[in-house]
Structure formats: C-alpha cells, structure tokens
C-alpha cells in the first residue's frame, strides 16, 4: 500500500504547483486561467531546446525557462486578459481555453524533439533511490526538494512583503489600490508572471516522469487535477490548495492500484470537484453584476433578412447535389456541431453560464438513439429517445449544479465532460467499444449515401433553429435573461428560478442530443472518439466566434472552425493560425463575427417589424446622436453606470415632464415653481385585480426571529408586526440588523430561530418566489433590476407571475401568456408615464427612474405588503420627496402595506405612521415617529447630537 501513496505524493506535487498558479491568478484577476498548464509546457519545451539543442547546462536553462514562461504568462495578461475586463467571465474562460491550445502548438513548434518523457532532459546531480518497490528518479527527488522551497518563498512573499500585499490589494480593489499609490495593473501582471514561472517549474520536473507519453496530450486532464485542489481550497489559500492536490495525487494512485482505470479516476475526480464546490457556495457566485453582457440580436424581422436566410438555406440544400460524398460528410459534421452549438447558445448566450459538457450530452443522445433505433428498427423513435435521454442527463447534471455559477459551473462541466469521455460513454449500454449506426429511412429509402444524409442533417438543423428561436424570442427567453442579469430581483418578482433553470438545461440538453443524433447516425461505426471532451470546448468556442447573441452564430462558427479543418488540409502552422484567428475574434469582437453581418442585414431595406421606436419629442443633441448609432442606444459602460445614465435632457420621470410629445405637461401637474415641493406628475395607479390579503391579526408577523453569521449575531430575538394597510419605518445604525431582517422576511435568508407569518400562514421556510405569490414582495436597495432588458421587457417579466410562460408553450410558439403580459405592461407604462423610457435598457437609466420602474414591476405583482430597502438612497432630494409621495399614494389608494428601511428621517416621518428602531440586532423602540425620535435609547444609540446630520433633508436648521 505504500507504493501508491508515495507515488501519489510525488504526482501530487506537480498538481499542487499547478493549483498554486491557478489560485495566484484567480486571486489577482478573479480569473480562471485554463491556459496555465500550457504555459508550463511551453517552458518545458524551451528547456528541452536549450539543453539538447543549444547545449546549455541544465541548471542554467532551468531558471531561464521559468523566466520565459513568466514572460509568456505576463504577456497573456497584458494582451488578452486586460482587454477582457468588464466582459462577462465566460468570455475570459473561453479565451484562455483557446490560448491553451495555441500555446501548446507553439510549444510543439519550439521543441523539435517533441516533449517525450523518455528523451526529456533530467535534472543532473539529483540522487535516485528506491522506496519500497518504487524507483524514485532524479526528477521526483528534485521535485520533493525544490517544491517546498518554492512554495514557502511564495507564501512568505505574499504575506509579508510590501509587494505581496500590494498584489493582493490590487486584486481586491484596483481603483482603491491606485488611490493608495499602488500601480494595480503592474501588480496583476506580476502575479501572472509568478504563476507562469511556477507552471514551468512543474512541467519541467514532471515531463521526465511521464514515460513515453508526450505531455502535451495530457492537456485538460492535467489541468483538472490542479483545478480540483484549487477548488478545494476555495481558490483562496495557497497552502491548502497544495495540500489538497497531494491528496488528489494519492487518491488517484490508490484508485489506479485498485484497478479503477482511467475512467474510474475521472469519475472520482468529477465527484470530488462537485462536492467541493457545493460545500462552499461562495465561489463563482453571481459576479456582482459587474459584467456587461452584449444585447442579444433578435432574429431578422425585416423582409430582406428573411429572404437572405431563405436563400442561404436553398444554397445549402443545393450543395448536396454539387459536392462529393466526402464533402457532404464534412458538411454533415458541420451541421451536427451547429446544432450542438445551438444548445450552447441557450446555456451560454441566454443563461450566461459556461458549460463545457454539452458535447457529452450529445454523446449520450447519440448512444441512446443508436441503441433504440437499432433494436426497434424505427429511426424516429430512436431519435426522440436520444433527445429525451440527453435532456434527462442534462437535468440530472443540472440539479446539483443549480447552486453553482460562473467558474464553479465551468469547472464542474469540464470534469463531467472528462468523466463522460473516460467512463460514462464507454459503458456497454452507451457507446461501449463501438456500435454500428442505422440510417434513417425516408419513404422506404435508407439514407445511406452521405449526400442524402446531409439533407437530413440540414433538416434537423432547421428544426433546431426553429426551436431555439421560439425559446429565445418569447417569455421563456426573457425570464432566463432576467435570471442571468439579476437572479435575486427575478426571484423577488416571483420567477421560480430553479424550475426555469432546469427547464433551460433540459431544452439545451435535448438540442445537444439532437446534434448527437445527427453526428452519430452519420457514421458507420460510432465510438467514444466521436465525442471527445475536447469537442465540448470546441463547440463553445465556435458559438462564441460566430456570435452568442445570434441565432445563426453557431452555424457561422461551425463552418469556420469545423468545416475549414475538415475540408482543407491544415498543417501545424495552419492549425496555429486558425486558433490564433478565433482567439483574436473572441478578444476583440464581443458579439462575434456574426454581429457586424447581422447589423448589415438589419440596415437593408425592407419592412421592419422591429419594436425599436425612437422616443417621441425628445429634444437635445444627445437624442439626435443616439438615433445615429446602431440600435438607437448608447453602448453600455461597466464603470459608473449611475453617472452615465442620466442624459442631458431626459429628467427624472417623476418630477419633470419634458419628455411628453410637444413638451407640454399632461394630466395636470407642474414642477415646483418658486419653491413649492415638486409635485408628482399625475401617475395613475393600476387597479387591483387581486384583492389585498387581509386576515385576522397582523398581516406580517415576525416572532423571535434570530440569525447569526459565523458567530456574529446579526439579528437576535426580534418581534415585529405590520398590520394591513400600515406604513412602518425601520431605522437603526449600520450593523443593526435591518437588512438581515429584511432578507429573512423576504425569504432570501433562513432564520436560525423564530417564525415569520404572512396573512396567517407560516412562511418561514418559503422561497422568495412563493412569498411573492402570496403578496409579500421586496424591493432592492440598488434597484439594479435587469440591466440589459428594456423597461418594457422588465415589466413583461413582472407579468410572469400572473401569466407565466410554460416551456412547451414557448417551444411551440403559443402567444397566450405573451398577450396578457403585454397588456399588463402597456397599462403600467401608461400609468407611470414611462412611455419615453419603454424601449431603453434599464442599465442606462438613472437611479430615480430605475426605482420608478422597479415600483411599477412590484405593483404588477399585486402585492399586499412591500418591503422597501432604503428607497431614497442614490436619489436626489427632489426625487426622493416625489417618490415618497408616490409611495403614500400606493399605500392609500391601493391599500398596500409598507415596511420601509430608511436613513433619511424627515422623509420617513412623512411616510410612516409607525417607526421601529433597531440596534445591535434588537428592537429598542416601537411607536409613532415622534415617540421614537425622542426615545432616550434611540437618541443615545443612533441620533447623536449633530443636528445637521440628523436633519439631512428638509429645511436647513
């Protein structure tokens, strides 16, 4: 038993070093660098060339090679990663995946000997001995001696030295770092360089131990082992990551010695990663909404666009009669990849997640379809079974992955893809060692010829396009986009998040399965080699290259990345050039290659059925310039969106009415002239269809609610009651527990003790969406809503609660729910005077306008009680007053109870009939505003003596 452990420790050392590099890069850039391993391999290639080609002494070439790798890594950071800041994390991951391949090719070019373990230079002067029955070579010894030194030095550097602290600071908050005199960007580059050197160290010492296997073939498998350890350390702690990798190494060797085989190891690794990620939910959580998603391009609505699409289809079909069988076969593969690419479009383009396992689902779909079609003799049954199986598998994988996002999900799907290739697909009831593929039969004629089969593939592609379009364009797609943009807000609006996500995964899985069916049946004999893990990466790459926001993106990408190498003979240089090409596209063109094409098509003459209309009556040069830009909107900015949002002429919706056609005020109110408080424009509130919930006793009741976070008592034994139609304010210093209490009341956090009751029912364990369904609705302090959706679309999403879009309805193109939602949204737009903003993206609006939109969305849910978190924050005083008046009207005209957290006391006093003061997690006063303001405990804890600070708004004191 000793031998596998010892061996495992040694291999674990390599993985550990990889993990250290990954964590270093992640901490400084919040980036998962998939190219990390390849950079190390490049360093190894350089060493090999120096030692064997240029006769440089080993111990001189070693640091030299490490420096080269450091330089390459730094170059990647400067040239690629920096340019991707502000783009969604998915783009960065895909870019590094491409870089990984590119750098690997470069390594092969550098080292003419290849990177074969047997011929690779070994460290001279290192002893070799035998431990038990295991021979320990010089490379292992070198690793065992030098690795701890390297790691210790690194750890000390980061913890103690000024530079190390600066690297960490620059990673944490780059702007703040700069304001401290720290050149944050340079520190990040330094971190990447260090990671690159570590990767080279690792690769140089591991290559001699690999026997005859060339290290470049290890690729994602090697990375995954390092990733496992890094993930176990929460991407935060270098020593823990290293130690975890030692464990991974030992575990791997032990499993191998017990006869588990490569497949078993891959499976165990995948499970390990999944569990490690589920145990710590912080990793890969929604990235704070900082990412700027490109706006999806709708399917061509103009006549010209549709004609073009039709012509393209005809041309593709016509090609079947012109080309050879081999070309047709290659084109079939292109079509198959394009179909799987559509599933990537749904998962990555709509839901914004990176799934590297879509091709594995394709493999499952193909395997099941082949078996069923073979045994029943009916191709159609087989295909349906295949799609269903793929969908089912996607849901099974999706269930535990529901809580994972971002890099956590990417890592899990990569692990799944590798486990699928190594173990799952090799199971005898799937692909086993290979099965024969029955061909589809069309009116008695079997499509054996490649040319005929190609037409079938084309038909499947059209079907997949239609399905994807239906899902994207309607309510279902909108809801998924809302979940991507701001999951919390979507849940607060009653969207059943887990169900929708699983529906999306199932739909994407079914599409992937269809692609698998197309690819699988197109061959004579299908083995696991048709569905390798690398293809999962390729299919994501091609979709991104073609354009994630475009329906035809995957087709374009497949033509370039699959069709080109399939039809034209590319040598190693050609391969490198192609990889470089798609890397450049990913980095420089966020919308892919297809986006400029789509815009060109959009400009062609033809009756436009588009919904984009220019807002009426807006004066000013800004609106004139905006009309000239494509799409009629400003491009988004990730930085100070708040500041950008307020255009020069378009004022807050509540207090001024310069937007209306003709500029005249409508509906009878005017802005405060000569000192009157800015009166609210005549906003008419929607009539309720659902009556306000009333029951015996208080509407909302919290009893003995307590919650602690890691030993800190945030809320301790709070009793709170809000009656129907009441307006209650909550005040208290920071850290008093107000927001935590809100999260408990709204369902985003579970209390440790106590109960929450609403309308007489115990809702303590209810999700936010269920509570919204009952009438308990919350708003958010930042009113971020859904930045890439328009105001109108946001209202449509809010309408989902009363008129939900089912998955099947969406897939089949039913318009029922859509019509009801549109009616509701139209009403709200009119009532709130949002007509001028209806087509604008929410992310462009100022805070005050966003709050109004949010309020409209909340009222669409017909709530009985609104939880409002600092509604005046970020809003000017004038608009704060107007908003307060609007809220008063909501309370009085619609009978909605309000529970409001506020720091602005005069504002709150106007609004609330009752106030509750909190401090240190407890309620310290409860009564009328005057009573609470003069309560001694409140004065002592909270108000203090600085009168200017207390009377923040209102007349000067």
């Amino acid at each position, binding site marked *: 038993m000793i031998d596998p452990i010892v061996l495992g420790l040694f291999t674990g050392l390599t993985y550990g070093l990889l993990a250290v590099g990954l964590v270093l890069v992640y901490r400084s850039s919040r980036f998962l660098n998939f190219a990390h391993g390849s950079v190390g391999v490049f360093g190894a290639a350089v060493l090999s060339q120096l030692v064997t080609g240029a006769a440089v002494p080993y111990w001189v070439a070693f640091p030299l090679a490490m420096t080269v790798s450091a330089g390459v890594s730094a170059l990647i950071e400067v040239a690629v990663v920096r340019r991707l800041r502000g783009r969604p994390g998915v783009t960065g991951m895909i870019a590094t995946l491409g870089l990984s391949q590119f750098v690997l090719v470069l390594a092969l070019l550098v080292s003419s000997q290849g990177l074969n373990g047997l011929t690779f230079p070994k460290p001279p002067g290192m002893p070799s001995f035998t431990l038990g029955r295991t021979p320990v070579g010089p490379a292992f010894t070198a690793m065992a001696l030098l690795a701890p030194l390297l790691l210790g030095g690194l750890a000390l550097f980061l913890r103690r030295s000024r530079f190390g602290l600066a690297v960490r*600071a620059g990673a944490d908050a780059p702007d703040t770092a700069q304001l401290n005199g720290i050149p944050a960007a340079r520190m990040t580059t330094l971190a990447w360089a260090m990671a690159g050197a570590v990767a080279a160290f690792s690769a140089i010492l591991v290559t001699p131990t690999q026997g005859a296997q060339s290290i470049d073939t290890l690729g994602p498998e090697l990375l995954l082992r390092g990733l496992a350890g890094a993930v176990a350390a929460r991407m935060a702690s270098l020593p823990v990551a290293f130690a975890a990798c030692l464990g991974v190494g030992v575990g791997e060797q032990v499993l191998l010695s017990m006869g588990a085989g490569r497949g078993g190891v891959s499976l165990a690794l995948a499970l390990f990663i999944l569990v490690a990620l589920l145990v710590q939910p912080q990793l890969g959580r929604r990235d704070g909404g900082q990412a700027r998603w490109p706006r999806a391009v709708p399917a061509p609505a103009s006549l010209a666009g549709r004609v073009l699409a039709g012509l393209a289809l005809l041309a593709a079909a016509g090609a079947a009669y012109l080309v050879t069988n081999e070309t047709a076969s290659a084109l079939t593969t292109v079509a198959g990849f394009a179909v799987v690419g559509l599933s990537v479009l749904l998962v990555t383009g709509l839901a914004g997640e990176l799934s590297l396992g879509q091709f594995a689902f394709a493999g499952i779909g193909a395997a099941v379809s082949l078996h069923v079609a073979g045994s029943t003799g009916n191709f159609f049954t087989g295909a349906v079974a295949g799609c269903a199986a793929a969908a089912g598998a996607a849901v099974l994988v999706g269930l535990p992955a529901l809580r994972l996002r971002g890099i956590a999900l990417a890592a899990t799907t990569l692990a799944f893809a590798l486990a699928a290739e190594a173990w799952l697909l090799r199971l005898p009831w799937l692909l086993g060692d290979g099965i024969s593929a029955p061909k589809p039969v069309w009116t008695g004629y079997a499509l054996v010829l490649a040319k005929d089969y190609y037409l079938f593939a084309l038909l499947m592609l059209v079907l997949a396009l239609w399905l994807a379009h239906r899902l994207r364009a309607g309510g279902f797609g909108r809801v998924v986009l809302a979940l991507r943009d701001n999951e919390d807000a979507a849940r607060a609006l009653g969207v059943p998040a887990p169900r929708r996500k699983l529906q999306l995964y199932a739909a994407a899985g079914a599409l992937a399965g269809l692609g698998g069916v197309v690819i699988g049946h197109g061959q004579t004999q299908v083995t696991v080699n048709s569905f390798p893990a690398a293809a999962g990466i390729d299919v994501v790459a091609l979709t991104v290259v073609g354009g994630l926001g475009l329906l035809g993106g995957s087709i374009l990408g497949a033509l370039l990345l699959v069709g080109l190498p399939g039809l034209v003979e590319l040598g190693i240089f050609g391969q490198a050039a192609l990889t470089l090409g798609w890397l450049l596209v990913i980095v420089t063109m966020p919308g892919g290659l297809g986006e400029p094409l789509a815009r060109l098509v959009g400009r062609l003459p033809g009756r436009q059925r588009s919904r984009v209309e220019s807002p009426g009556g807006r004066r000013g040069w800004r609106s004139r310039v905006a009309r000239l830009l494509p799409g009629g909107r400003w491009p988004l900015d990730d930085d100070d969106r*708040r500041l950008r949002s307020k255009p*020069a002429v378009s004022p807050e919706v509540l207090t001024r009415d310069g937007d209306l056609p003709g500029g005249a005020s409508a509906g009878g109110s005017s802005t405060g002239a000569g000192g009157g408080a800015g009166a609210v424009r005549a906003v008419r509130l929607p009539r309720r269809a659902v009556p306000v919930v009333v029951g015996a006793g208080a509407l909302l009741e919290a009893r003995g609610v307590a919650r602690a976070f890691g030993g800190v008592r945030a809320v301790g034994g709070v009793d709170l009651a809000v009656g129907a139609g009441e307006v209650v304010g909550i005040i208290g*210093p920071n850290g008093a527990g107000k927001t935590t209490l809100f999260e408990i009341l709204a369902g985003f956090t579970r209390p440790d003790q106590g109960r929450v009751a609403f309308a007489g029912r115990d809702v303590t364990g209810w999700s936010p969406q269920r509570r919204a369904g009952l009438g308990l609705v919350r708003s958010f302090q930042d009113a971020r809503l859904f930045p890439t959706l328009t105001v109108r679309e946001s209202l449509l999403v809010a309408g989902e609660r009363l008129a939900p879009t089912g998955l099947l309805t969406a897939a089949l193109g039913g318009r029922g729910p859509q019509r009801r939602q549109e009616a509701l949204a139209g009403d709200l737009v009119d009532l709130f005077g949002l007509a001028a903003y209806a087509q604008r993206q929410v992310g462009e609006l100022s805070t005050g306008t966003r709050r109004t939109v949010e309020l409209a969305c909340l009222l669409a849910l017909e709530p009985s009680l609104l939880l409002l978190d600092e509604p005046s924050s970020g809003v000017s005083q004038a608009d704060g007053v107007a908003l307060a008046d609007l809220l008063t009207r909501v309370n009085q005209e619609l009978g909605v109870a309000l529970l409001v957290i506020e720091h602005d006391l005069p504002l709150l006093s106007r609004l609330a009939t009752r106030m509750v003061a909190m401090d240190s997690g407890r309620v310290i006063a409860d009564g009328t505003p005057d009573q609470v303001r003069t309560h001694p405990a409140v004065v002592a804890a909270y108000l203090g003596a600085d009168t200017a600070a207390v*009377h*923040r708004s209102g007349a000067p004191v």
Partner: protein
Amino acid sequence: MPADALSATGIDCSYGPVQVLFGVGLRVGPGEMVGLCGPNGVGKSTLLRVLSGLHRPTAGRVELGGADVTGVSAVRRVRLGLSTVVGQAAFGSLSVLDNLRLHGYAMPPAQVRDAVDAALAVFPRLAQRAHQPASALSGGERQMLVLAKTLIQRPRVLLVDELSLGLAPIVVGGLLELLRRLNATGVAILVVEQSVNVALSLVDRICFMERGMIAAEHRPEDLRAQPELVRSLMLGGHA
C-alpha cells in the same frame, strides 16, 4: 498670491462616446474646504475621478498647487500630496492592519509604522479589530478605516466622496468632526456631498453641479439668509 491647492479648468470628460462633463471648472484655495453638491448622476463622482487621476479628461487642465497634473497618473498624484477617499472602499480581504500599512505604500517604511500606530491611537475601534479582515467591519468602521488614510498619507489636498452614504447620523457626525479638524491643520478639502445641509455645516463654499456643469456657487452664510434659494437648490432645480 499663493497658488490654489487644487484647481480644474474647462474639464470635458467622456465615457466612450458619451460626454458627461462639460467645461467644468472649480478651485480649492489653500486651507479651504469646498463642497460639491448636486443630484445623483450629475457627474460629481466623475469629476472626482478626473481630479484624482483615475480618469483622463478629454479637455481641460487640472493643477495641484499650481503644477499641471492633467497627464499625471493617479499613483503619482498620491506622491504629490493628493489623497482621495471614496466611501467605505477598503480592501475587504486584507486585515485592518494591512489596510493601514497599504495606505502608506508610497511612503518610506519606517515612517509608515509610526503613522499606522498614530492612526490606531486616533481610532481605538480599529485598534480593537486590527487583525480582522476589513470585510468584517461595519459601514461606519470601514469609513473610519478609509479616512485613516488622511492621517497616514498626510496629504496637502484631500478629495472626499460619499462620506455619509448609508451611514447613521451619529456616525456621520463623528466623521464630519474629523474633517473639520483636518481642515484646521491646513489641508485643503473638496467634499462631494449629497445632502446640502451636511455641506452647509461643514464647508467654506458650496458648488452646485447640474447635468455635467457647475451651475452655481454660494457661501453658506448667503444660503442661510435665503431659505427660498436653498429650498429650490435642494429640490434639484435652481431658481
């Protein structure tokens, strides 16, 4: 006549194709405290970013103590004596002590140690939590940590943004006191403040911004004599 501690003239600034500042000019005399007020989204924070060096203006000049720093990076401006404090922006993953040490990154190490000790003496709450990560601090404590920068960097000019955002009045009172004391030692301060009342109690002059331009400039005494003017200014419009 001594040069202004800080001055900006004719600043134009854009984010991509969108212009947000239009010919903005303001000055802070030596030892003066100036307030910058205005509704949300009007460009106050952008102006501060331009002054601190985080964002390059497309036109205009920024001068620090009479020297042109328009093209100088933020990092170098720190060394020239300009400190910027943005509400509650600390390094969450680092300890309080490390945060303080990093405030002094641009200074010689020996000086830093003494400065950090002095800062901890002024803020006993921070001393209690010296080894905790900054993310564990409450909003007010984080603001103290950020303001400790002024004690360590000993700037000649201080820019303050979002001092009171999200903080309880009692905490804000304490921070205002700190600013007053700092100003008394001769530090020129520019405070961006959403609440006119807070600004009135603090500064020598208030500049009002609207839609990317400086719309008006008043002294607190004058404003207190004309409550009508204040009311209309506070409501966002201006008479």
